[in-house]
């Protein structure tokens, strides 16, 4: 495996995301929604900031999920559809290198977009509250980046097994579903009778718990940082799932007929 080739492939993915209009459209939408909201007068009281954090962070999460999944979903299928996969694989590059390169590129592109959103968030809330970067926010950003990496890996694996539209739909449903309901699975398992409780427990154990990466409540309500041990545990958790998804993707692509 050559790092140079992997990075060359990833560079193309980054170029693609930033030369298409999607990210800028999302960015503009976030701005157009957040800025007027931050100017609303609530009963003549000034300096209210938590609602801006809530709405801005919600928008950032929504758009980061959309951008990450739609971008990752078209990486390899796009190459196949355009037929650029043939001149690419006819060169001295392995299929594994291609998959890893695409994954890294999609991740770098989505992470770059995410960091731009957060930079805007920091400026917007900083102007309003005179408080710029907190350690909880830094942790939140780090975990959000881990989330993006994990979702990228899952989507790229999905892109090799499903059609692009099916992949996008499934990944969106799974991601949003786990974010909303993932935390309630243990309770559901406990409250159910067999065999539902066993199935729920298995699902609870196997699925990647995306809700681990969502620190919005802590950031919005100034609830402080997460315990450092838990923080690194969640990062390790993301790394484990990512490596599983990417390994599976490499294995599937090596056997895939194109």
């Amino acid at each position, binding site marked *: 495996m050559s790092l140079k080739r992997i990075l060359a492939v990833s560079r193309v993915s980054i170029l693609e995301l930033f030369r298409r209009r999607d990210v800028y459209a999302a960015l*503009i939408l976030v701005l*157009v*929604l957040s800025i*007027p909201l931050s*100017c*609303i007068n*609530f*009963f*003549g*009281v000034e*300096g*209210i*900031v*938590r*609602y801006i954090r809530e709405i801005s962070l919600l928008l950032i999460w929504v758009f980061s999920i959309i951008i990450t999944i739609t971008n990752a979903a078209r990486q390899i299928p796009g190459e196949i559809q355009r037929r650029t996969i043939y001149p690419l694989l006819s060169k001295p590059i392995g299929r594994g290198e291609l998959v890893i390169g695409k994954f890294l590129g999609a991740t770098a592109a989505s992470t770059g977009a995410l960091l731009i959103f957060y930079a805007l968030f920091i400026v917007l809330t900083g102007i309003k509250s005179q408080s710029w970067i907190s350690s909880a926010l830094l942790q939140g950003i780090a975990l959000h980046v881990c989330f993006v990496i994990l979702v990228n890996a899952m989507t790229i694996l999905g892109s090799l097994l499903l059609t692009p539209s099916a992949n996008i739909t499934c990944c969106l449903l799974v991601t949003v579903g786990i974010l909303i309901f*993932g*935390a309630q*699975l*243990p*309770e559901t*398992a*406990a*409250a159910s009778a067999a065999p539902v*409780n066993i199935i729920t*427990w298995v699902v*609870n*154990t196997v699925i990647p*718990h995306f*809700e*681990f990466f*969502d*620190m919005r*409540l*802590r950031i*919005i*309500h100034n*609830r402080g940082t*997460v*315990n450092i041990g*838990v923080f690194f*545990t*969640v990062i390790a958790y993301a790394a484990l799932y990512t490596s599983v998804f990417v390994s599976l993707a490499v294995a599937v692509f090596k056997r895939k007929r194109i």
Partner: protein
Amino acid sequence: MLKRLVTLLLWLTALALGVFLLQTGLIQYQKGGRNIIAVLLGDTRMLLSSKMVVLADEYYHGGVKHQDCEHGLSRHGHQKTLEHTQDEHAHQHTELHSKRNNAETKQTPEKDTSFFIGWVEQINKEIRPSGHKHLHGKRYEKEILPWMWAAVKASPENVLAYQVSSFWLADKLGKTEQALKLLEKGIEHNPDSYKLELSRAQIFFDPLQNYEKTLSAARKALAKWKKKHGGQPEKPRSKSELLDHQHILTLLVESNRRLGELQTARSRAKQALEVHPDNEYFKKIFDNH
């Protein structure tokens, strides 16, 4: 490149203008007296408004959902008795609160959850704030206002939204004028609501200490309360309404007393005891004057 920039700028301007117009209400139109939000949302606006109040409650509790807290705003509304104390980190459970808890808590069978509550829940407990923490101080207490504002806008018929907002403005933030204006608006949309008159009376009483206006507002509240019950105050429909009745009478009696109208205060206290025989305050006024 320049053409694209100009097109982009035009789009941005159009979008910004649209948002600005919405915000200033210039494109609100009247259809049966209702604004555009009411027309679009229909009956779901009450649901939306209630949701906004719940969200405000969560904000008050530092992002923790109401089911973790016994005296959340959305469940009990504005409760300010003369004996209510509030501490940032501890909870004073009045008899009223604990009675309500006992009545409303459902009995659920205990389940063995140890097998299922594992690492997932441990991590989620750490990631999500657990244990509520009240907003304290003007700097933080104002944070619930956007959701209360949204609750009022979403459904002008949500009396609780007006009550809580006005309490918050007057009591927590010292914005009594805004609170009274808001209540007036609420009364406009809900002319039969005695609760809003009661809230007005409370604000006149404390912090404004304007006892004449307190009397005026409290009388209106009483009249509307009686009207609601077909002129039979001795047969209230719920414990909450009984409490409110007690509150109205307390304000009337105490206002009379502070204005020096002791006989009127005593007489009112006597009448109040007919409906609320166990009330220690009315007994004290009746006995001492």
